[in-house]
């Protein structure tokens, strides 16, 4: 090509690009569903998000079948599309929410959460006739199994299976599951205390007086043990069919479905389990006949497929593919998607921890809390539809008896109160402190860091933004002798109570541990121990909430971070799709296919 012609072409190309730009529409305002006081409340999702209520169910509540969602239709094939395949099928190895959610389809435990209505859940007996009976001040827990509960081969589920399932969690090959029950039964270092059942040794403090009864005897009172048993990690495994490590690949079903085929990282298909009886199950609806799952779909693709809603995607939904921030305006602005949207803030607690060994002056920590640019961070991450601004350590979704408080005026001034911060700094030991802020080197964290730096510098705090490699980020910040002053960390409750949050994030200080602020206060420790052993669960929940505020008031070990809001879509022929607010994932229990 002659070069003159070439330059002409180039100019034409540039001009046509500029033309495209000349007719880009504005992005006036948020969609009408957005609240007027955007960013002000702790959960500014559309139509004022209400945290779920979780209460304790009775024996009557524990009877099957599950409460069907409105307009339910049985049968059909439903498709689930997501990015990642499930890492584990062995209940003992399940801690991650996606694995736990899948576990609902093929395995059962002693207790579980029954959906009464939207946002209303009850802890009920799943295999057990009720949510357990405590005695001896919460040290002894007795569960009675229901009649007619069977394994996929038709053999009955017995108390020996339950005992076995807990015992095998002590085995050396089990490394991922939860460890609450194990430590309560033995000691902190539970793997040393008991080597697992495979050598023929039994655990004496789990008793099985008959085939239907199982009794757990803990060393100290645990009023919330029935919540612990609801974790998917404590779902049961058949004693007769246990294949140790191999069980993770070939699980035996006690739930409504059986794995028919599984191609790792690609697809999975479920068929009905003929030996599952809906009349025994208060939790699982199990409406579709066949489940097909597709993996390897990125969140953007999944979102685009649901927006297009064509052909087979109409009967598809996703467990965990959250709408990415850059698609939010499109998804939330489209009125035709209104009935196919599900929105929920995450159940995780996210914090910017102060390193108390280095930032010793509470006035400085408070000043940073006041100056914190919560609203600007929110905007950098996609606005109030993408990110909520909580003000408490405990998350509203996973705290029974949640009571909000706002110590640092974030409701009135979410963009930060620089004047107040300056005033506090002037009273502090160092009016112009330097803060080393360590952050995970992710593309989304760069703008957030810039915003934080910008705001704190306005208050006269010098910020050294230290980028950490994403692979070693958590290792670096969880070193007790780290050289950073401020860093982000997260923790999710395992059941709706402060007892799975507070004693962990303010627990033992160790390398690689979760106490990243290095808070080591005797009064807090004593208080946490007292609340953990309180046999009255309601009083305990209230006490956790009070301790939450007390810690922020008297110590201020952290800045409460922004909380992501999940927006999930599903196909137009999928009914009953709802986000489980505790797991932040679309629950399979109520899913059905519209005809």
């Amino acid at each position, binding site marked *: 090509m002659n*070069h003159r012609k070439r330059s002409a072409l*180039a100019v034409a190309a540039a001009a046509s690009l500029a033309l495209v*730009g000349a007719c880009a529409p504005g*992005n*006036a305002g948020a969609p009408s569903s957005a609240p007027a006081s955007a960013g002000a409340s702790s959960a500014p999702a559309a139509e004022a998000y209400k945290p779920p209520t979780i209460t304790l169910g009775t024996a009557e509540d524990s009877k099957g079948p599950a409460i069907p969602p409105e307009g339910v239709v049985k049968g059909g094939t439903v498709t689930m599309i997501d990015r990642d395949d499930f890492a584990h099928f062995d209940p003992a190895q399940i801690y991650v929410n996606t694995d736990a959610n899948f576990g609902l389809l093929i395995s059962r435990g002693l207790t579980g959460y029954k959906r009464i209505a939207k946002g209303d859940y009850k802890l009920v007996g799943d295999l057990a006739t009720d949510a357990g009976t405590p005695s001896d001040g919460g040290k002894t827990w007795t569960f009675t199994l229901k009649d007619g509960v069977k394994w996929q081969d038709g053999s009955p589920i017995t108390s020996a299976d339950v005992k076995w399932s807990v015992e095998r969690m002590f085995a050396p090959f089990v490394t991922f599951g939860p460890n609450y029950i194990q430590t309560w039964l033995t000691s902190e270092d539970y793997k040393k205390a008991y080597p697992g059942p495979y050598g023929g040794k039994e655990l004496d403090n789990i008793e099985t007086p008959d085939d239907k009864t199982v009794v757990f005897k803990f060393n100290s009172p645990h009023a919330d043990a029935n919540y612990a048993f609801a974790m998917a990690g404590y779902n049961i495994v058949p004693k007769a069919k246990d294949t140790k490590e191999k069980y993770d690949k070939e699980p035996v079903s006690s739930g409504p479905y059986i794995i028919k085929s599984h191609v790792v990282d690609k697809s999975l298909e479920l068929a009905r389990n003929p030996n599952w009886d809906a009349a025994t199950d208060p939790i699982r609806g199990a409406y579709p006949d066949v489940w097909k799952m597709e993996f390897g779909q990125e969140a953007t693709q999944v979102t685009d497929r649901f927006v297009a809603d064509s052909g087979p995607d109409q009967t598809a939904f996703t467990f965990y593919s959250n709408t990415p921030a850059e698609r939010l*305006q499109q998804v939330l602005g489209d009125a035709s998607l209104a009935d196919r949207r599900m929105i929920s803030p995450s159940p995780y607690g996210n914090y910017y921890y102060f390193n108390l060994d280095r930032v010793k002056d509470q006035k400085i920590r408070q000043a940073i809390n006041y100056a914190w640019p919560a609203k600007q961070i929110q*905007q*950098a991450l996609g606005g109030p*539809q993408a990110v909520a601004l909580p003000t408490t350590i405990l998350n509203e979704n996973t705290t029974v008896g949640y009571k909000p408080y706002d110590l640092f005026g974030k409701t009135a001034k979410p963009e930060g109160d620089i004047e107040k911060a300056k005033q506090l700094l002037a009273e502090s030991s160092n009016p112009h402190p330097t803060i080393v802020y360590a952050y995970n080197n992710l593309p989304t964290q760069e703008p957030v860091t810039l915003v934080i730096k910008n705001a704190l510098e306005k208050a006269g705090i010098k910020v050294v933004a230290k980028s950490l*490699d994403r692979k070693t980020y958590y290792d670096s910040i969880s070193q007790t002798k780290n050289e950073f002053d401020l860093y982000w960390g997260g923790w999710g409750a395992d059941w709706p109570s402060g007892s799975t949050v507070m004693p962990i994030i303010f627990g033992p200080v160790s390398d690689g541990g979760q106490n990243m602020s290095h808070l080591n206060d005797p009064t807090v420790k004593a208080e946490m121990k007292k609340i953990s052993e309180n046999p009255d669960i309601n009083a305990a929940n209230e006490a956790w909430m009070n301790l939450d505020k007390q810690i922020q008031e008297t110590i201020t070990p952290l800045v409460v971070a922004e909380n992501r809001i999940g927006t999930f879509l599903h196909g137009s022929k999928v009914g009953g799709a709802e986000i489980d607010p505790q797991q932040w994932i679309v629950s399979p229990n109520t899913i059905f296919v519209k005809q």
Partner: protein
Amino acid sequence: MTTPTSTAPEIDATSVTEAPEAVGRSPGQLMWLRFRRDRTGVISAAIVILFFLVAILAPVISLVYGKDPYTLYGQDRPGLLNDFGYAMAPNGGISSEFWFGIEPNLGRDVFMQLVYGIRTSLLIAVVATILTTLIGIVVGIIAGYAGGKTDFFIGRIIDLMLSFPQVLFIIAFTPVVDQLLVPSNEETPVWLRAVTLTILLTVFGWAGLARLLRGQVLSMREREFVEAAKVTGASPARIVFKELLPNLWTPILIQSTLLLPALVTAEAALSFLGVGMGEQVPDWGRMFLRATQVYQNDITYLIFPGVALLIFVIAFNLLGDSVRDAFDPKIKR
């Protein structure tokens, strides 16, 4: 029979008018003359000069325009960005105040980002080009002139360099540099990142030019004028600098004018991949990265860095072509 008679006077006329001018012109003057006649070349040169001027005068532009590239206007002033962090005004927030609109989410001024972004790109690219060219010249001439074992070893090193997966290496190596050189409680300084990028781009850039020059030198080494110089007892240094180098300026100039835009794009690509300059430094590559994520809602933000980079690279490439044409009019493409 009519044709020769009709053409003869014309030939005469031209030879008469051109004859006095054709006296005493150096190759450089000839090149300049040819270059000036090439309209594409002149326009490209003007654009390239404009880009350089903008880069050098960025602070002046900022002063006149009244904005800087660091302030988060969209965040500090309500009403510019909506709840999702996109500009409320049409066309990415273009207004008399923000000529090219405002950046989504962070709300910085796009025009200033672009102007200061030229600085980052050009600074790294120019320094890397100069270093690359210098190393390429030295290594290429040594290899070509010395020959034998030296040539063999240098040749293998060049092979190695050319076959190295450079982008992967830079992505993997940059964090390592940070970890080695930056104390664990300090920020990575901006200059360190710039120096690292420049050095890495240089290290992987010189081999091409060196191989080209080696070939040129090899073909010239046995020519009469070099032999003559050798016979008269000229030192190797004299032969290299006075006999060989003047004949190599053409490929060197052409190569470096083509290398510069390539390095600008390489720098942008690295920033796009997340190993470029940090968020606080305006950079075209990072603007691209952000723009590709938000283009469905704010296409304008993609247009500006896109068109700017397009114009710059095309202008520079066309300039390179014109320079080549001017130096060596025999090559017809």
